[in-house]
């Protein structure tokens, strides 16, 4: 409507959320300085608020919470990396299991596509988790530093992927489907609400996609990341699935991949209820808030806040790792 003034929700809420997030982490960090004053309620509350913000931001950005949670916790708290990665995978998994239901009920998430991708992702996620546990047992302090350094570099790379993600296409032109993909019968139809009609689509390069999902699973399991940041580009840019289908399949798939990866961590004793449950509750509350804000906030401003958080966490991780080596 001409002349109508709109409230810049994104410009107000998102920087405030980012400041609060760092504030919570500082609160948590401040507790370390005075162990005698440590209060489980303050600790759990700070984690709950931090994870609520992470959950809202990740929902708005369409990524699993793990990719923000794990680098931030490793970069800004002295928690053991094995415990942080366990919790990162756990919150990413729980968020995905909760979020996937509406996509599957509407038929937006292609169950065949996600099952095809889930098998290699889950297998390699378990391998990654076992590799992480092996490194923890054998490599000691150096291994801890190497994991933080590699994760820092990886997170900086993810920031670059987010910056380049503007190139994603809503409805990619598939053209001729290769014989292997055609035999799998992955094409489907979903109802596109914005167009008010069904949209039929095909995908291609299933073989390349499968190979890439092996790598995605390994990285996800080893570093405790949800992997939505990698799954969406593989579905959308490599296999040429429509963007909404790619995003909804990613959400459902993180649930399977992270479930496979979290168990070896859990069996290794890496989960502590005092850390995991406030984070879980925060992510669930944050996801609900994020879906409400989504209608008003501008996607572009959300993307840049996420990029900022990820890059700051990445730089901090690299600096800390170099200090440990």
């Amino acid at each position: 409507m001409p002349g109508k003034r709109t409230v810049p929700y994104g410009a107000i809420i998102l920087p405030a959320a980012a400041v609060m997030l760092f504030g919570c982490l500082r609160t948590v960090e401040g507790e370390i300085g005075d162990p005698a004053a440590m209060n489980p309620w303050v600790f759990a509350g700070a984690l709950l608020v931090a994870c609520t913000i992470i959950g809202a931001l990740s929902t708005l950005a369409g990524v699993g919470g793990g990719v923000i949670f794990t680098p931030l916790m490793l970069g800004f708290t002295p928690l053991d990396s094995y415990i942080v990665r366990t919790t990162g995978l756990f919150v990413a998994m729980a968020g995905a299991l909760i979020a996937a239901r509406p996509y599957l009920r509407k038929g937006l998430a292609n169950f065949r596509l996600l099952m095809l991708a889930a098998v290699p992702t889950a297998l390699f996620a378990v391998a990654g988790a076992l590799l992480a546990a092996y490194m923890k047992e054998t490599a000691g302090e150096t291994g801890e530093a190497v994991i933080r350094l590699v994760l820092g570099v990886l997170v900086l790379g993810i920031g670059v992927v987010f910056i380049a993600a503007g190139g994603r296409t809503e409805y990619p032109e598939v053209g001729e489907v290769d014989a292997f993909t055609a035999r799998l019968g992955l094409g489907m139809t979903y109802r596109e609400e914005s167009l008010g009609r069904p949209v039929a689509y095909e995908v291609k390069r299933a073989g390349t996609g499968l190979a890439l999902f092996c790598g995605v699973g390994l990285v996800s399991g080893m570093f405790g990341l949800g992997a939505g940041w990698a799954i969406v580009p593989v579905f959308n840019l490599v296999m040429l699935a429509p963007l909404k289908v790619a995003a909804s399949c990613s959400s459902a798939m993180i649930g399977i991949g992270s479930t496979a990866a979290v168990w070896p961590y859990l069996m290794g004793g890496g989960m502590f209820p005092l850390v995991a449950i406030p984070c879980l509750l925060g992510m669930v509350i944050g996801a609900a808030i994020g879906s409400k804000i989504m209608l008003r906030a501008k996607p572009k401003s959300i993307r840049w806040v996420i990029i900022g958080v990820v890059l700051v966490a990445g730089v901090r991780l690299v600096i800390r790792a170099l200090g440990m080596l």
Partner: protein
Amino acid sequence: MEEQTGPEAPLCGMVYGDTAFWTCAAGVAIGAAGLVWYLAGGGGVMEAEAMLESLWGGGDVAAVWRDAAGREAPAGHWYLGYLDRPDGLAMLGAVVCCMGGVLGTWGALVSMLVAGREKKRPQNRLYATFCLVAAVLLTLCAAGVFAVR
């Protein structure tokens, strides 16, 4: 202009989504109850203040268990013997959450094999096989077959 409706969503996907959602939601509720009980001083397996001190001192899993519970870190489903303790209950909630994906995958497989509408879909057996592989893998993980101790 009359809007066109889309095709019916596959049943296996809906079964997976619903099972995973409600199992996870139940886990969240159990975990929240356990956490509140724990923070209210319910006398857990691990002493909360000591655990925090160890965690923030950068202690690893073994060190945290030693400092907070005065024992070696237990492997596997340790909480099953402590369901009458708040942290045991909170941990059960977390594990129930993790079971969402496992149960959902088995549910999807059953719907693929049993529901007539799914059986008619082309390549149903191929995707049922993928689903079976995923379900078995997740079950083995949940049973603790894949773990480094």
